């Protein structure tokens, strides 16, 4: 009996010690020039809080205490590398996970034509979609081009006929701020053998469930068939009515885009 009492006491006194409640850590800060990169980029993780360590992964897995502890800049070379970082501390609840997906350059794009964005979100000049800048999950970042019209068209000129494997588009999603992903994405090319445009791929994105927070989202659409084309015709349909669960249901949504890649 005496032993069991002792054990109970020990168990209790080894529990983490709380002030009046257990606080959760805030997610660490991920710092990098841009999520878009040429050959190589470097990401830093900032979290200046005593009594904590930041663990990270580059394979998309949720960081745990067994993953590497962040000690210095992380080098990134692979396309679609996902950096996930999470702060841990004995006296705290672990943080939510901070995430960034890094996107490597694709084929050289000679020129672009596109639907003019809304005057309030004009982007960062004519090269916005191919300047390798952006990937900031904030509506105020100047790299975003915002649209509230029904249809957005982008015509990509590769300079000469090249085989296209896939197209990647980079969007912002912030549904509480009326910013949705496009309802439909359609990619067409000018296959010489076919008459007119040839459909290379489409994506239909659902909005039946709410997504909270503000996030960067990429959509990569594989070209089937893989054809040689000089021009690519990208069509994005903006949701004309926000869904029933939204506070502004029925109103016209927005889409925000900051970059595209052709692989």
């Amino acid at each position: 009996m005496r032993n069991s009492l002792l054990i109970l006491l020990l168990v209790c006194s080894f529990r983490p010690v709380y002030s009046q409640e257990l606080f959760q850590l805030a997610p660490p800060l991920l710092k990098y020039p841009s999520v878009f990169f040429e050959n190589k980029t470097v990401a830093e993780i900032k979290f200046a809080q005593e009594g904590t360590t930041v663990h990270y992964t580059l394979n998309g897995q949720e960081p745990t205490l067994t993953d590497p502890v962040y000690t210095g800049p992380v080098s990134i070379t692979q396309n679609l590398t996902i950096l996930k970082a999470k702060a841990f501390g004995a006296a705290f609840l672990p943080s939510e996970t901070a995430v960034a997906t890094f996107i490597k350059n694709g084929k050289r794009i000679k020129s672009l034509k596109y639907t003019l964005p809304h005057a309030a979100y004009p982007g960062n000049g004519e090269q916005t979609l191919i300047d390798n800048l952006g990937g900031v999950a904030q509506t105020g970042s100047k790299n975003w081009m915002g649209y509230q019209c029904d249809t957005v068209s982008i015509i990509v000129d590769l300079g000469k006929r090249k085989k296209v494997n896939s197209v990647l588009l980079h969007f912002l999603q912030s549904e509480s701020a009326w910013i949705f992903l496009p309802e439909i994405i359609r990619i067409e090319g000018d296959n010489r053998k076919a008459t007119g445009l040839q459909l290379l791929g489409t994506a239909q994105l659902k909005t039946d469930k709410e997504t909270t927070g503000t996030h960067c989202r990429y959509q990569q659409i594989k070209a089937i068939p893989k054809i040689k084309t000089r021009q690519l015709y990208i069509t994005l349909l903006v949701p004309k009515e926000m869904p029933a669960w939204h506070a502004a249901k029925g109103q016209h949504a927005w889409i925000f885009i900051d970059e595209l890649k052709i692989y």
Partner: protein
Amino acid sequence: MNRSHFIKQSTLLATGLACNPSWLFSKEGEDIILGHNNKRYRIDKKWGELDRNRYPVKDCHEMVQDSKGRIILLTNETKNNIIIYDKKGKLISSWGHEYPGGHGLSLFNENGEDVLFICDNNRHQVIKTTLDGRILLTLNYPKETGEYSKEEEYIPTETTIAPNGDIYVADGYGKDFIIQYNTKGEYIRHWGGRGTAEKHLKNAHGVCYDNRDKNNPVLIVTSREEQAFKRYTTDGRYLDTIPVPGAWVCRPVIHGDYLYAAVLQSNSRLWQQSGFITILDKNNKVISNLAGSEPDYKGTMADEMYQTIKAFQYPHDVCIDDEENLYVAQWNSGQAYPYKLKPVR
């Protein structure tokens, strides 16, 4: 009662004691301490809690301490715009039903008598009252400046009162001007406003009279969206900028040699309840962030600051009492009552 039963009882009792957080809390040095250097605190989130049915709050915007040592809170809840506590968090009194946009609260000792200045966002007015709510003066939108065509353009957020009685109003949600009046409420001048020059302001959310250098008092104005404080002479000449990178600072509060400010949120995590409290020393250098990143300087420039511990949601003001305790009022934070933070000596 047989023996085995007795031991079971006492085991439960002992377990209860050992696991009770309040028992552990009393063990010095083992609980969470917020802040850095000589400005470190323990937090008491229950300090200001009241019977929500009788004394509700919405946004808790600002707090001041009066000369009797009482802590005065301004909320935009018109059931009781003003709630007066003692330092232990006990309710003393409450009043006010006519401040639906109650936002700024400053206290001034006028010839030995405490008076309050309330900025009301919705009423587009600044109202001077006694401590029990009698109205002494009302300032309407400043037509005299020539900058405003209607009252809706003017959304005052803060006042500060100079020792000579001059009233400075920050139009932080309107056109970002600082408007100076004499003690009678007569317009003297205005400055600031929006623009691209250093002297301009972007979300002039707060203003304070900084007399830390007794021979050279200045005004410190918040430029929140720029993540900076800006210093001006008392007649409105721009002096310099104190950058606080990453920190959406609310009003500066001068106490002793230090400048304290609630940080509504971190620029790195906007609108995600990422607030903390920052403290600057007499050289206007950040020395402590409560629930925020450890201050770091590269040369004279502070490194980007951010929330590290989710102890606050959207802190909106900080009040420092005569015993160096802090009180934190929060905006849009689940109608939370104010917290108290006690210094770790």
